């Protein structure tokens, strides 16, 4: 079955430190990949997306993600986090065979240590 795994439920990093949030998917073909951010009580904001081409994609708020086909991964990175980055981050995929729906991972809650 198609699935998305975010192995880290909660991560705490110091302000100014680098960040990497992990995401793995399981599916045979190339998926369409997304990272969304959700602040408490808020909706889903798209950070970045990958459909094809360059496997390193840049998003908003200084985030980037790299698609690694061999590892079925799409990890999110930021070189220096800010206190305002504290939020829930969801990796999501859509698959060509069922492109009418997006499958979300269980999310990673990011806390920032002052």
């Amino acid at each position, binding site marked *: 079955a198609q699935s998305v795994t975010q192995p880290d439920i909660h991560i705490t990093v110091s302000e100014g430190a680098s960040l990497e949030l992990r995401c793995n998917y399981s599916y045979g073909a190339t998926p369409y990949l997304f990272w969304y951010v959700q602040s408490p009580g*808020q909706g*889903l904001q798209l950070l970045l997306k990958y*459909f094809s081409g360059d496997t390193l994609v840049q998003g908003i708020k200084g985030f980037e993600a790299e698609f690694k086909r061999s590892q079925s991964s799409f990890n999110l990175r930021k070189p220096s986090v800010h206190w305002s980055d504290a939020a829930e981050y969801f990796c*999501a995929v859509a698959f060509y065979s069922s*492109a*009418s*729906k997006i499958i*979300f991972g*269980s999310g990673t809650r990011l806390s920032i240590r002052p």
Partner: protein
Amino acid sequence: EPEVTQTPSHQVTQMGQEVILRCVPISNHLYFYWYRQILGQKVEFLVSFYNNEISEKSEIFDDQFSVERPDGSNFTLKIRSTKLEDSAMYFCASSERETGAYNTEAFFGQGTRLTVV
């Protein structure tokens, strides 16, 4: 920038009552979706809608749920007889084409928080 709007932002209803959650998708979009997020859990796909019919639905989307595009602008989710476990944030989304096709992304609304008491 065009956006998906949902009303109300928060709705409280008694168990057994019917609720209708409303969404106005982006005007030139053709595909519409409902997702839900139970508190503290992940976002789950409920249903997709295209050309005035359901194109895909999850096992969550049982007979108590229905969707409708009553006019040219609104997209609604009806829950016929709400249960306590229906309490969740419900997100509407829309896209110009199927997600991924021609680099199409889905745009999400801010959500309606449904509380069943």
